[in-house]
């Protein structure tokens, strides 16, 4: 037992030495993962706001489209949608460019990752925003109108800040899921944190150590996010906190 314990020691020092060599690669992977997550978040929020607007719209066709969007996207696994968009859009696009006689356009894994994750999490954000919009009292819309604000002004200055307070818990949960879902994009070949850890682990014969390292970095990212979310909740909860128990 003690022999085994002692033999573990050199592997740790060995790992520290290899880690030194692979640090730039790992950092690049972390940066790609963070970029991917943030850009998908932005796209997802945009999809979510549009979707929520459509769901609460008076036009029946809009409501139907939004309902179809959220039902289909939330009923199908994200990985499947990612593969469908990655391979499918590529096939469709190359057929289109061929028909038009244009040069071959290749979609890179990063943009198709952002597209897919934004599209998928947009459906979850739609539900969050819809609930949050409904939670803002109707009088607030009317008050904004009565003050002579246009619809956009009213939304940006009156409705949005109040809506965010109701939306934040849901958005926070979705962000955590989205952050972890970025790991899937390595399956379609993006050199993100997971991929980089696998490459470094295989070439240095220390796969487990590098995978654990990647897991630790994800843990760090989600811990930092939950701190930021707590800060945001405090910011948007100003003036209401006292009354809640």
């Amino acid at each position, binding site marked *: 037992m003690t022999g085994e314990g002692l033999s573990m020691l050199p592997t740790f020092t060995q790992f520290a030495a290899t880690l030194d060599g692979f640090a730039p690669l790992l950092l690049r992977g972390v940066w790609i993962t963070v970029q991917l997550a943030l850009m998908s978040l932005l796209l997802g929020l945009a999809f979510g706001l549009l979707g929520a607007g459509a769901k609460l719209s008076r036009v029946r066709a809009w409501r139907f489209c939004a309902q179809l969007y959220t039902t289909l996207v939330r009923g199908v*696994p994200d990985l*499947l949608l990612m593969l469908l968009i990655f391979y499918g859009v590529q*096939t469709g696009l190359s057929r289109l460019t061929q028909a038009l006689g244009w040069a071959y356009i290749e979609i890179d894994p990063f943009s198709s990752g952002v597209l897919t994750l934004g599209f998928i999490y947009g459906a979850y954000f739609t539900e969050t925003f819809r609930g949050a919009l409904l939670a803002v009292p109707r009088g607030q819309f009317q008050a904004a109108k009565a003050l002579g604000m246009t619809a956009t002004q009213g939304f940006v200055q009156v409705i949005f800040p109040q809506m965010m307070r109701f939306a934040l818990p849901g958005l926070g949960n979705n962000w955590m899921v989205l952050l972890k879902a970025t790991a899937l994009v390595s399956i379609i070949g993006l050199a993100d944190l997971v991929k980089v850890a696998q490459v470094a*682990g295989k070439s240095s014969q220390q796969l487990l150590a590098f995978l654990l390292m990647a897991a630790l970095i994800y*843990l760090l990212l989600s811990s930092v996010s939950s701190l930021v979310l707590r800060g945001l909740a405090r910011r948007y909860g100003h003036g209401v906190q006292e009354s809640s128990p």
Partner: protein
Amino acid sequence: MIELIQDYWQPFIYSDGQQMTGLAMTLWLTSASLCFGLLLALPLSIARVSSRRWLCWPVQSFTYLFRGTPLYIQLLIFYTGIYSIAAVREQPLLDGFFREAINCTLLAFALNTGAYTTEILAGAIRAMPRGEIEAARSLGFDGWKLYVHLIMPSALRRSLPYYSNEVIFMLHSTTLAFTATVPDILKVARDANAATFLTFQSFGLAAALYLCITFALVGLFRLAERRWLRFLDPGR
């Protein structure tokens, strides 16, 4: 499209002739990992709400680790990471277990859903109305009897709506199994796509299957909630 269905309906549904594939594999992965996960979560959730720090702290770390990292990384660790250690390969028992892709996959899935389920159940236990516990105490229930007869049945019922989300989530997560060569629905779709280049049709067929399972599960949970959560809404 017709040809694709003719050629691939069998692997998509149950078997490619040698082993269980497609829908059958996906359902097995989902139900087995949910069962193991729930069995794990029952004792862990009780430990999670315990006021004894040595009992609560390890469970809290477990759920923090498994909920804070992607399932894909966990699967990679169990499937390729652990098996890359020489000591594991030399030990016959461990070698036998970790050599099989399906074992590693189920282990990763079960621990992952176990961690989420633990937190769901712990939340439901914490939300128990104090009056109910006091009433049971006054009737002479205490210790494990309190848990077996009152707290756990109630917590399991109350967590149904949250657990249904976790079940759908787990179903969708089983698609990761193909990265460990386990032939689930998505693996069959990928094979069909690679062989026929009918991308939209192959993945579309898989998507339709997943949609059917999702709707069936949502329907089942709606029935279950109507049956077991009626006491929360006596007006109906």
